[in-house]
């Protein structure tokens, strides 16, 4: 009993902070989402409008388009980060000259603020002054102009996200790989398993929890990407990179459409939870059921 009380006492500061900085703002957003509220309207007050904002979200072509490009962005970014992150983790498991140096360099993007990352990539991709358009033009005769081409803009935002966040995946997977016991690998080698078989039947199942945890983190992060993209493309050209985070930003801040913007935020939160649940159900739950 004593230890239970002590446990709650120790948890209390965290729970209080979480309540005030997590739960209360969420409840407020939920509350606002049921109102029409634009402080620059003729009537600047909050007007309760039932679920009108949610009804609007479902039929909002701009939001649906935004959701579509976001799903594509998340898919390409997270899958690429996982593959490249795993390859780098495997590389860093081996010894080679300058390993510590390269591992440090590789981690540097992680410590940069997203707005700085966006600025750097903007400088690198601006025609005339950017290094990338110049190199691509000089070496391959390829015209890179992300202010003009929707596909190029989308691709560059994906690459920027990969550049920024792959080190996180690498570090997570290095931690998982380091913790693996050597016995199953030695036994598999004695039994004559090749590298591909070892990867599919031993390494991958053993690091699956780390992979899934990393995917959860990256999925949630990628779904709410704002700063980098806003700085790099502003959501353009047109709406090609107007991901839901950027869409919500433009709806809530410049347009001061607080009620409707809150409703979109709640819907996006719901979709994120659903996506994570689907991932959990398809990858973790069957395994636990089999164990049970």
């Amino acid at each position, binding site marked *: 009993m004593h230890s239970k009380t002590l446990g709650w006492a120790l948890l209390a500061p965290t729970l209080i902070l979480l309540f005030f900085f997590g739960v209360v703002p969420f409840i407020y957003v939920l509350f606002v989402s049921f109102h029409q509220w634009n402080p*620059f*309207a003729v009537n600047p007050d909050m007007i309760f409008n039932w679920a009108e904002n949610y009804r609007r979200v479902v039929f909002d072509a701009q939001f649906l388009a935004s959701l579509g490009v976001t799903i594509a962005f998340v898919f390409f970014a997270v899958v690429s980060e996982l593959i490249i992150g795993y390859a780098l983790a495997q590389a860093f498991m081996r010894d080679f000259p300058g390993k510590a140096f390269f591992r440090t360099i590789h981690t540097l993007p992680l410590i940069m603020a997203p707005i700085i990352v966006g600025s750097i990539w903007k400088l690198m991709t601006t*025609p*005339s*002054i950017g290094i990338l358009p110049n190199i691509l033009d000089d070496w391959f005769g390829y015209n890179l102009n992300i202010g003009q081409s929707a596909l190029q803009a989308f691709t560059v935002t994906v690459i920027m996200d990969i550049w920024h966040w792959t080190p996180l995946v690498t570090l997570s997977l290095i931690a998982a790989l380091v913790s693996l016991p050597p016995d199953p690998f030695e036994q598999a080698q004695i039994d004559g398993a090749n590298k591909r078989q070892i990867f599919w039947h031993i390494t991958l199942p053993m690091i699956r929890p780390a992979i899934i945890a990393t995917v959860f983190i990256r999925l949630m992060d990628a779904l709410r990407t704002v700063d980098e993209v806003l700085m790099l493309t502003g959501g353009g050209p*047109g*709406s090609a990179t107007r991901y839901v985070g950027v869409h919500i930003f433009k*709806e809530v801040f410049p*347009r001061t459409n607080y009620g409707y913007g809150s409703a979109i935020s709640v819907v996006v939160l719901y979709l994120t939870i659903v996506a994570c649940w689907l991932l959990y159900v398809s990858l973790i739950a069957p395994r636990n059921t089999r164990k049970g």
Partner: protein
Amino acid sequence: MNIALKIGASALALSFAAGMAAAQDDSFWKEAGAQFEGVTLRGVTEATPPSNYVKDVLAPQFEELTGIRVDIETTSWDQMYDKAIKDMEAGTGIYDMVYIEQDIVYAYLARDFLTDITGTLTEKPELKSPAFEESMLTSFAEFFRDEDDHLYGMPVEAFIKPYLYRTDLFSDPEIMAAFKEQTGRDLAPAKTHEEYTEIADFFTQWGKDHDLDLWGTTAQAHTGHAASWYEYFESVAPTFGVYNWGIDPENNYAATVENGGQMNSPEAKEALKWWLHLRDIAPPESVQSTWTEVATTFAAGRAAQGLVYGENAAWIASDENQSRVVGNVGVALPPLSEGVLEDAESGEGYLGYYDGGAFGVPVTSKNKEAALLFLQYIAQDELQADWALAGSRITNNATYDDPKVQALNEELGGYFDMLRDQGDLFGGAPAYPFHAQVREATAPIFYSILTGDIGPDEGLDQMAAKAEEELTSLGYRQ
């Protein structure tokens, strides 16, 4: 000898009087500031040359005199608004001064966000500097007054968006001869849109033919930033006779032609097509250019002419560390359609954008009195000349006559003369409290026009309808 003695005595008397005046001025600031010793004022503004001057020069000077610390946060245009509006909306009182761009002041006044400067200084005369009178300010200050003629913002920058051109290129004999041969007329700054296009086409081709990084015009045509929307609605459309974004506030805020607006009028469509052609022959970075990049493009010598915000004119024309076209910048009025100049002269229209901003004191500020002292401090005539050199901005009438400013005016090709003599022909943003709301509602369609996903005619039809829908939703349009 007698005359020399008189001159010497007069000079001595003058310098003594000036010294006394300075001492009196200093004593006011010291005495007025003493009651606020230890106070820290916090301001948020856009990172522009004039604002940076306030942060780096004027704020430390004021602190030294009064003991009131001034922290000015310079940030991007979007962030500046985001922070200021959130602070004033939530009533947190973080900021004691916010930058009010000319186009947002009507929204702030409608929400009673700002402190009445005139009223407060009248009620508390002990706060009023003997060196400050509202009549010192240029007519730009009129944009920051309410219906009772009370001032709500102390102007810190004011500029028009003129037509800049490269004097070295326009006076190059080889280029002049080639232009004459091709077009049959002399090369001179354009007065009409047709002439402007002809010059732009000529220089873009000239750049190609001579393997130069030179194009015929700038274009502020970012495909995802409001800068492009502004260039069209505030700088281009008015030169075709489409004013106030094509919205008629006297006619139930109509935007569509069928309801009496002009946003999708034939003139608006002609203006957009003209500008889209210029965008196509402008440097490739134009589709990613906001106002800042347009200035750097021109300063890099990559464009022969363009519409460039005047806040950048000084450094483009005079700062060799940043500009490759120093001494080669000419200034002219933008090219106009027939009748637009007459509209501007009669006050029915305007030629282009007269922009700028002021520092206002939010009603939520916890240090209003100290902030008002600071605003009066930066409005002093004797501080204006160096500020004008740093940021090509003039907000006091006396600044035009300062020898340093007149010298810069020569380098700028007469920009300050134009600001003084023809500034009235330019117009600020319309007095709409729904500025950002209509812009953001219609901007996605505008960006789709820029990417070619929608044609200009169809796009403007959609934008006009969307503007009316937004105005109805906000309650302005019945």
